[in-house]
């Protein structure tokens, strides 16, 4: 699918996510799909927001704004439409007029016609649509292959960081699958690239702390 305004640079993303995306950013006028709403969606918003863009979140009343703010989202430049209702395509199109990046979880499955119209709206503008759900025409799809939280023990500790393997593929430039290990979030609440030698998945199933590791892994 041709993407409009090739001259404009893409929207920036957090540096840790750059390697996952073609050209290291979000191409304007494109659609990204993440299978399920979660921190990964918010992390994708954070980069553009920190750069001065406005973000819209539609149809996700449970979005954890505080976690997003920890990842770098500027809450002053965020619009929330928790319940867009059946008119969600119009709401998303209106938001795309004002915001650079709109995250939407469609309340119903988007028909091909709705998708085409929204994609046409996108190509006219400068925005990027981030869909938490299914979107067959998406240029880039992101998913979390595996993940594990660290810091919890049996009755002690607290959640500190999450190590996740994120895979991206899609169409055109993005067709090649890229996989990265990320701390999402890291202990300081931000996103960081995880050193493969450091990931808690290499531990034996018993979860004994290794010599270089202070944290204990949980999860199976």
């Amino acid at each position: 699918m041709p993407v409009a305004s090739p001259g404009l640079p893409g929207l920036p993303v957090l540096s840790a996510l750059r390697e996952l995306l073609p050209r290291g950013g979000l191409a304007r006028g494109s659609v990204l799909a993440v299978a399920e709403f979660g921190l990964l969606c918010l992390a994708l918003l954070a980069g553009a927001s920190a750069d001065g863009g406005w973000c819209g979140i539609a149809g996700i009343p449970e979005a954890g704004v505080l976690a997003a703010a920890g990842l770098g989202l500027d809450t002053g430049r965020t619009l929330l439409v928790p319940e867009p209702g059946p008119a969600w395509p119009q709401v998303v199109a209106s938001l795309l007029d004002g915001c650079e990046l709109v995250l939407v979880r469609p309340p119903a499955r988007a028909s091909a016609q709705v998708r085409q119209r929204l994609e046409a709206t996108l190509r006219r503008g400068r925005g990027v649509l981030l869909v938490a759900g299914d979107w067959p025409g998406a240029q880039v799809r992101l998913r979390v292959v595996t993940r594990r939280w660290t810091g919890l023990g049996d009755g002690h500790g607290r959640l500190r960081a999450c190590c996740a393997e994120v895979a991206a593929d899609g169409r055109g430039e993005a067709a090649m699958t890229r996989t990265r290990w990320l701390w999402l979030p890291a202990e300081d609440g931000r996103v960081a690239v995880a050193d493969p030698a450091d990931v808690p998945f290499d531990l034996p199933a018993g979860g004994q702390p290794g010599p270089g590791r202070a944290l204990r892994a949980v999860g199976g």
Partner: protein
Amino acid sequence: MSPRGFGADQPTRIMVVSCPELRGAEQGRETARRHERVIAVVTGFCPNVEVVEPGMCAFGARGPARYFGGEAALAARIVAAVAGLGIQVRIGVADGLFAALLAAGAAAAAGGGDPVRVIPPGGTAGFLAAQPVSDLAGQVLAGQDLTALLKRLGLGTLGDFAALPSADVVSRFGDAGERAHRLARGLDSRPLATRPPSADLSVAQEFDPPEPRAEPVAFAAKALAGRLHAGLAAHGLTCVRVRVLAVWADGRESSRLWRHDGLLSAAAVADRVRWQLDGWRPAANNDADDDQHAEGGVAALRLAPDQVARATGEQLALWGETIVSDQVARAAMRVQAMLGHQAVLRPVPSGGRNVHDQVTLVPFGEKREARLAADRPWPGRVMGAAPGVVYQVVREADVTDDAGQAVTVSGRCAVSAAPARLAVRGEPPRRVTGWAGPWPLSERWWDPAAARRRARFQLATDDGRAWLAVVQDGRWLVEAGYWLGGLGEPGGSLAGAEAPDVLGDGVRRGAGIRRGARPASAARRYRCRRAAVGRTALPFLVQLPRRGGHPRRARRRGGSARPGDARSHRSRRDVRDPAVRAGRGEAGRPGRAAAHGVRRRTESRLAARAG
């Protein structure tokens, strides 16, 4: 504090107008209406009137009395004017409000005779001295007790009470006693709080015959807004919000408050009226094809200022405040026009101990203020990573131990057993692989109605998720979730090998990925499966706003709403007015210049419509 209290030369002359029949009456709508008419008549003599209580009002008598030729003459005129309404009044004039109230009461008690009782200047102390102390009952806090006590002490009249040294009164009867003593001596405790009559600043226009199209109504709204602004400016006022009320021919009403803050031009108000009408229509007649609709059009339009305040001018923030650009504001307000004012929210990080409290959601256009201050320590809040998913309504859950018994937390915060299974209501159970807690939290223990005792837990489950759960009143509630999203199939259905398998071979599945260290193989499997996702086209009529504005307007201009003509290689037709194109070009930067451009565009479009 009366001027006399500070040794001023002239005591304050107060006139009290009392309507005995309205005071005792039931406070129904009819009484209120008659009372309001009496106040209106009295306002005709003196504009600044304080309503003391239902059926009784007071005002400073000096100025009006001089104008009307004396207090007695003024009182006679008021009595005659109110008698025209069929209501009898009693009037008392004295130095100070308390004495005037008693004088009006004395005039009423006289009955049949003169309805006016004027205590001459300087005679107030003598008049008060003869009154019984029970008159103080309604004037001060716990007055009943005080007057009963004074009577038992042998002080029958206000004169007896006033003769006591005030220092002794204060030491014996405290603050309320001192206030009563001041009243008994003829010193008012406070000046009269009069208010000028509130002018009706709302403006309205009726449409006869009812106007079925939005554009003429919006055009009329522009003229109405001009009148509204002129009326506000004449009073030196501004309004925080403006209420737009549209009455349809069949009697239904559409009323909505729009943020104004004195910043909106007449054209901007007209824009909001049009959005409101547009937003109202689709819900009213979804199947009708065009502007002509069943309810027969708008019969009346009213703009009323809400929260009127003194206009103090506006100073834009130099820095520190996020400037909302015109484009964003327009987008947000268009969504508000579709879904309502509360539908578009801006988050404000706040304080608080619960994850719900830590973000305040403020409707777009209102002041961004945190409900709970964020810079306080808030002991007991959840530390560490913030959850990415905060449920608006807590979800019930069951947490059981290895034996299948529900896990409980005792009053001393001891856990009955280690949690082994978490079953969120409506979802299959998950195995708990790590947990921490309980972290006790006792909130508002001093308020029995709002007191809550809870114990928090963080639970990690075998599908890689983590949860924030609380135990309250023996029930487990899940408040928030920590996860990343996007695990498994992007098709929405989590079926297949990637699905979170429940309580079964989660370890083995994880082990496969762990040991293999070949993420590409997982991705390949995923790609193959994705090819099978079919595309279905469901008939669903959608109108999307085009860049040129609302689709309805775009179509009227001859543009097509089909998506086909929006292909990227075709140059877009500029549907804006030439003035705007020039304005955009010369402005070249966002901000105030852009705001003028928008305004000009709307105005010129409206003018073109009218022509």
